[in-house]
């Protein structure tokens, strides 16, 4: 049977992707950011996941104003890196796992999570920057990836509680798939940031560190934080953090914190990163 073994959470700042693509990772500005990902780059080589269920948000790339799905699952065999206005990132095409994606879709919809099915989609920095941070510059991504896009562009996004509950249903869905697969669930986005308006540049280190603390052992409580708190305290784009709760919901109640990292700034954003392993059961 398929098994969820671990979760990874990370910010997906586009400037981080640009720093990797342009060979700037050793520059003094970027060096501290990439140092925070040295652990996960080694760890992933030992873990060797077969499939990553990657929760991210599309940034007005695949979805324009005509279609804005709240939860959308990528069921295609492959997804190309998108041209977001400055040419596509020079990263490999993402290979999906259509049979597992179809199984998850069926299971989640029957568990009352009404997903949108996507059979053709380009993926933007929200998905490819986390892959670059963990796998580095590679010819091919070393595993299959199921993209799961959450609307956080048009207010309101799904609540933290809804995301956390979806994660729990996702665990049931993945772990009822008959093939033996090592599956990881990643939650991306955040941490505090605001990209717009006179308040642009807001960073709330207290909010972020409280979030990093509570998502490990008090996720039930964290899931109840309402939208308005994220928007007010972590910035209009900080609300992306609800996506981390899908990852956390998909893991066991008891997890082992393997790595925690926090750094300000990467461009306009606070970078947060966690590696969590399911405790043996």
């Amino acid at each position, binding site marked *: 049977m398929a098994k969820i073994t671990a979760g990874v959470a990370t910010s997906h700042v586009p400037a981080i992707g640009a720093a990797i693509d342009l060979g700037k990772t050793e520059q003094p500005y970027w060096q501290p950011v990439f140092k925070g990902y040295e652990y996960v780059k080694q760890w992933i080589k030992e873990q060797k996941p077969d499939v990553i269920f990657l929760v991210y948000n599309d940034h*007005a790339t695949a979805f324009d104003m005509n279609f804005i799905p709240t939860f959308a699952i990528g069921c295609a065999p492959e997804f190309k890196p998108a041209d977001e206005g*400055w040419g596509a990132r020079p990263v490999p095409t993402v290979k999906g796992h259509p049979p597992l994606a179809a199984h998850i879709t069926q299971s989640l919809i029957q568990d009352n999570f009404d997903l949108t099915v996507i059979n053709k989609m380009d993926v933007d920095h929200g998905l490819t920057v986390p892959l670059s941070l963990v796998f580095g510059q590679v010819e091919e991504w070393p595993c299959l990836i199921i993209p799961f896009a959450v609307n956080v562009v048009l207010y309101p996004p799904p609540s933290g509680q809804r995301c956390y509950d979806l994660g729990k249903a996702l665990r049931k869905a993945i772990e009822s798939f008959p093939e033996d697969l090592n599956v990881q669930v990643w939650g991306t986005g955040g941490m505090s940031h605001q990209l717009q308006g006179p308040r642009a540049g807001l960073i709330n280190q207290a909010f972020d560190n409280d979030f990093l603390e509570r998502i490990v052992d008090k996720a039930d409580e964290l899931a109840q934080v309402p939208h308005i708190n994220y928007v007010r305290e972590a910035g209009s784009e900080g609300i992306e953090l609800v996506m981390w709760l899908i990852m956390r919901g998909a893991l066991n109640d008891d997890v082992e914190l393997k790595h925690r990292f926090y750094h300000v700034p990467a461009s306009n954003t606070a970078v947060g990163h966690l590696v969590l392993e399911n405790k043996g059961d």
Partner: protein
Amino acid sequence: MSKKPYHDIPGTTIFDPAMALMGYHLNQFAISLMKAENRDKFKANERAYLDEWEMSEEQKQAVLARDYNWMMSLGGNVYFLAKIFSTDGLSFQVAAASMTGMTQEEYAQMMLDGGRKPEGNLYKQEQHNG
């Protein structure tokens, strides 16, 4: 209409369905710039390309002025508008700085110093922006 829960957050436009309705054509114009051929057309003659879209005259003026706060007040969303400043070859940080009234250098330094502090910036009545 009752006040929205986020009405008292300073310096922030929440892109809710009312704003999305107002900004539909502006945002669709912006996202069209993801295609290289459209970027070329826009760069060759901005006004002519804008006139192909059912935008209000004020929305077109806001785009021509590259005034992102103005565009957002007319229903623009920053992720859609990002296609405009990407077309201009500008980063998110340069665009964000332009919305704050700070110079690019002052804004970059504020971020290096840990970003805009939450103190005084969470509620309109306590705002002092520092």
